């Protein structure tokens, strides 16, 4: 089967992906320490590192949002039901039989329908949940000044922040595994490193 390469991920996109990946992994590590799951850096240090990472990630997102809208790349995340059943069938049956991947990435449609759904979920659900709760967590001391101290409790803010973190962790595990399901086990990862994806 002949294979060829297409250019899927542009330079900024790759930079965004990897720096965000590192920040998220680091925030999971420090965040669960703040949560009390283990001791690694020490509570105070973990809070500081988690906070610095959060601000860095905010900066990164400002650029990423700008990039997505100016380049029109945001359309990559519009959900579709087309081929979604085929995708599920591929992951649950076809992949074990060496069946061909039902989705062919192109520069204009680089995510398969399940990816679209998953990433949209991360961008519109898990992300904002973490951001919003994290923001209130960080500015706990200002609740009174903002007039929200009667509506919010730190306990519930922390609950949803932690819930978001568990979702992000679950996404991370699945995401890392699914990168091996390309044309070859490493073709997706190579694409995210070089921009060029090998397709059949």
């Amino acid at each position, binding site marked *: 089967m002949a294979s060829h390469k297409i250019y899927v991920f542009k330079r900024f996109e790759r930079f965004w992906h990897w720096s965000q990946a590192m920040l998220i992994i680091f925030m999971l590590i420090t965040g669960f320490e*703040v949560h*009390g799951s283990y001791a690694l850096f020490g509570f105070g240090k973990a*809070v500081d590192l988690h906070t610095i990472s959060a601000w860095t990630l905010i900066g990164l997102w400002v650029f990423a949002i700008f990039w997505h809208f100016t380049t029109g790349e945001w359309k990559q995340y519009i959900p579709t039901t087309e081929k979604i059943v085929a995708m599920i069938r591929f992951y649950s049956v076809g992949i*074990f039989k060496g069946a061909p991947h039902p989705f062919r990435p192109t520069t204009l449609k680089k995510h398969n329908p399940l990816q679209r759904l998953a990433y949209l979920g991360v961008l519109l659900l898990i992300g904002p949940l973490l951001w919003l709760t994290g923001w209130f967590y960080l500015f706990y*001391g200002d609740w009174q000044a903002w007039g929200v101290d009667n509506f919010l409790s730190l306990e519930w803010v*922390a609950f949803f922040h*932690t819930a978001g*973190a*568990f979702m992000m*962790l679950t996404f991370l595990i699945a995401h890392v595994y699914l990168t091996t399901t390309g044309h070859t086990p490493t073709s997706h990862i190579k694409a995210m490193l070089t921009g060029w994806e090998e397709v059949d």
Partner: protein
Amino acid sequence: MLSGKKVSLSALAGCAMLTVMSAFAAPAQSDSASAATPQTVADTRQKSASTADHSKFKELDKHFRTGPEVTEACLICHTEAAKQVQHTKHWTWESIDPKTGQKRGKKNIINNYCTSPVSNEKDCMACHAGYGWKDSSFDFTIEKNVDCLVCHDTTATYRKLPGDAGHPVYERREFPPKSGKFVDPADLKKIAQSIGKPSRSNCGSCHFFGAGANGAKHGDMDSSLQHPNKYLDVHMDEKGLNFACTTCHATSSHEVSGSRYNMAAATKGPAHIRGNPDSSPAACQSCHGDKPHPQHMSKLNQHTEKIACQTCHIPEYARNDIGTELSWDWSKATTMGEDGKPFVSKDSAGRRAFDSKKGAWVWDSYVIPEYRWLNGVSTYKVIGDKIDPSKTVQINEVGGSPDDPDSRIWPTKVHRGKQPYDTVNNTLTVQHTGGEDDTALWHNYDWQKAIVAGMKAANLPYSGKYDFVSTELTWPITHMVAPGEDALSCAQCHSKNGRLKDIQGVYMPSRDGNRLLDMAGWALALLTLIGVLIHGGIRILTSKKEG
């Protein structure tokens, strides 16, 4: 074995602060002498900045026979001074709760140290800023009975001994009795001519020695604060800021600010501008404001909504070898030695551990405080109040809750006692302890006689039946402020078994969390991991088969 000297030593540690002044001029006589390091020299005060040299006043250039004679001389110029003092707790030993009207103060409450000065005035009033309070007939309006010198002496030679009802030593006498040590009379003229502002030694002469031994009572105040280093107290550090007590406890019209009875538990806002009249100048916030940390530590500033400064900045109290008393068991008093005679014993650090007169004590140093929500309102058990002997009696019920915006989490010293009560009337008893008469507990070792005499002096009914009940007294800790680098670190509270593990009503990251969420969250992540591993495993197996 019991030596005559030991008995006489213990005699010295009579109720409130017998060691008092003696600790300064004659350290070896202190009940806890091994721990105290009092200095015989006057404190290292700088030359007075006063515009008046009292040694040049003709009113003071004469022989004074008694304390009241000195006061009369003082009042010639300081016409309002005695009237001012007579309005303060230092004179009345009484504090009225502005909210409830309850009369508290030493005169009215029964604590679980020496219990009550009533019927023991001759001894206890060694720490009264006055002369002659020997029983309930004391006239609180006589101005010449105000003691100016105990607070204003700069020579450290002015001593008031138990038994004299607040008078200084007028005649050379052996003290403690049969000790072979003698106390010389104070040179009242010299003392009067060299008076000055109160130093740490003046305040400390009573406040360091409460309950009859150095450091016993407060835990955050003892003789080590006469010459403290930075580690012990960042503000009083003798080589640094060298604060006097009155630097924080700013005083106006002889009214000393800062009181445990009417405590400022949650002072808010920025630091106070000089000249701004404020009710709580002794609070940390009056100088530091309620956002005291720099911008890069702003997370700490958010803590001031819930936590008193003292909670982090006084990580331990009694931070020295002197230590403090954690419990006093009066029920062991009157226990005699094997030879049938009274005896005393000390703990391994040389602190009083047992005395047939007073019972058993437990001491400790570098004590980790117990933490409580405090709003500064305490309700005390006063003489005659009913108690419930079936549970531990709270000498003071400290107010405060997590929902109260005026409450903060405070470090406290909880002193645990066992003391006599009337089993029929259910009241804590007043007992006559000090004195040389037949009914004094420390003379006759007879509880019944001591309680009868004490209750009579207090005008309380006594059924004739007594037993001992457990009590607790809770005091905020606020002195011995450590340097910043010794403050608590985050994880000392933000952990599962940290300092604040028993504090309710506040969500603390790392300490708290939702167990169900944690279980569900980790289960979800783990199942996902197992799922992808199985998926991947099958892929490897099937691809090999094909291969």
